[in-house]
């Protein structure tokens, strides 16, 4: 394997997403202020019910983290569908680098781009709604956050491979994986409130455990209702991160083979 070529391919694919932060300022409105509207609505709903203030923090944290899930769905999972529609996919396939380096580039670029947006949303939400944080272990919080992202984008790489053959179904699949996942992963409330089995099932999505662990490390109060301890969740997230990346590698090879055999890699407007 030509490491230098793949290294360059990875950064080449990450580049448009990283540089996009400064080249396309409209994201400030669309990706920071607009999500705040939804976050504000949920906060006012909690406040209208007389909920303790800690829930405001839960909503701001969950609302900021939705950016990563949306990015994974639309800019990782469905990305090869877009590439197929615009005619880029065939160029990727005839280029001499590994397709995994393209996926890794998409993930790194997506993490950076979305990280800036999510952080901006969180800071604005934090300031606007007077969120009370109790961070006692910032190193652990950082570790949980980073490992969550690696596992999440590993899952995105796996999805991307599985979506490779889809037509319009890819768009609809990503569309349907938004609200139901916000629900079962506990973006706006502790996931344990959904019951043990739902929480256990939803743990396959890294953001479920990531959010639960981050809530434990950022807030203080009985309302946190931890599903597992953050240490256990961190270990599971590490396992998920490795598992998803390996599964993505296998799935990519298999789906590419299937796509070539069935002649669906260049099929547009399905």
């Amino acid at each position, binding site marked *: 394997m030509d490491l230098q070529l793949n290294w360059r391919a990875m950064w080449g694919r990450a580049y448009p997403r990283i540089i996009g932060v400064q080249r396309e300022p409209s994201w400030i*409105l*669309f990706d920071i202020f607009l999500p705040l*509207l*939804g976050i504000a609505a949920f906060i006012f*709903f909690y406040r*209208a019910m007389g909920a303790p203030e800690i829930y405001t923090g839960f909503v701001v944290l969950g609302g900021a983290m939705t950016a990563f899930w949306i990015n994974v769905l639309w800019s990782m999972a469905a990305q090869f569908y877009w590439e197929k529609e615009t005619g880029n996919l065939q160029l990727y396939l005839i280029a001499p680098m590994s397709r995994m380096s393209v996926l890794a580039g998409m993930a790194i670029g997506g993490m950076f781009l979305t990280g800036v947006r999510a952080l901006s949303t969180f800071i604005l939400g934090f300031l606007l709604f007077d969120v009370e944080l109790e961070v006692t272990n910032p190193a652990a919080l950082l570790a949980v956050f980073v490992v969550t992202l690696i596992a999440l984008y590993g899952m995105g790489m796996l999805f991307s491979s599985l979506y490779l053959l889809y037509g319009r*179904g890819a768009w609809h699949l990503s569309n349907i994986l938004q*609200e139901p996942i*916000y*629900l079962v992963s506990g973006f706006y409330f502790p996931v344990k409130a959904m019951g043990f089995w739902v929480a256990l099932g939803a743990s396959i999505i890294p953001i479920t455990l990531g959010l639960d662990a981050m809530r434990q490390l950022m807030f203080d109060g009985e309302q946190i209702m931890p599903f597992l301890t953050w240490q256990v969740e961190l270990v599971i997230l590490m396992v998920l991160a490795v598992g998803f990346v390996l599964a993505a590698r296998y799935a990519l090879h298999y789906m590419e083979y299937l796509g070539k055999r069935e002649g669906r890699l260049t099929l547009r407007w399905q």
Partner: protein
Amino acid sequence: MKANLRTLKYAAWLGWQMESNWTNPWLFAIYSIIKPISATLILVIMYLIIWGSVLEQPEIFSYMFVGNTFYMYVAQVLFGVVFVIHEDREHYQTLKQVYIAPISFYFYIVGRAVPKIVITTIAAVITLAFGVLFLGLPIKLGAVNWPLLLLAMAVGLFCILMIGIALAGVSMLTAKHSMGINEGIAGMFYLFCGVTFPITFLPTWGQVIGLAIPITYWLEVVRRAVLPADLQWDSGLAAYSTGDIFLMLLATSLLFLVLSLGIFRYADRLARKKGKLDMSTTY
């Protein structure tokens, strides 16, 4: 008029095919209802975490549930109208052909949104049935004020379509922001129109915004039509009679109609002048 109705019919058929023929009917049916029900269940869980049972605060629960269910129309229909421009121009690259065809472009856009209205209606009915059967939502079919509900739905949907037409006009001038514009406006309505909580919880400037938008009055009329009088949470409009609120709904809808047509015509002229009708930005 006959030609316009024909345009509406075939645009609706085209919209339905694009909406549904990517999969089998059963999967499509599940797909169509799971998303809105999940969105409602998020709020249900939030409510249950705080209050434990629907019976604790039935007026809060009913307010939130009914508001959120009917808000589906705002989100889905707006999306249905606005995304037509983006989809036809960028994805299928057929906008220019449709545009020069001897049909009413308004009727074409509205026709394409009709399947969204039908699908949303099915999803709303299923969500309400789920609420009544499994969560104790206090709606009794015999006690619903059907004439008021049907009248409110007609005016409300017309208003939502008009707002969508205005946004479709704006999206003729933008490259990739159709989704953002749509979600932004829908998000603004979600926050300011008393969908899940009374507008009295908003700061004063927020209440002023809410009172200027017809969706606020539409949701209030719908709640009065479907919920029992003793289970109405004061939305901030309790002092007004249903007739007064309906008049405010009509007045603000009329204002939005004029604004919408003005915005669409201006954007349409500008798009033709700047050659944006057939632009392709690969988004």
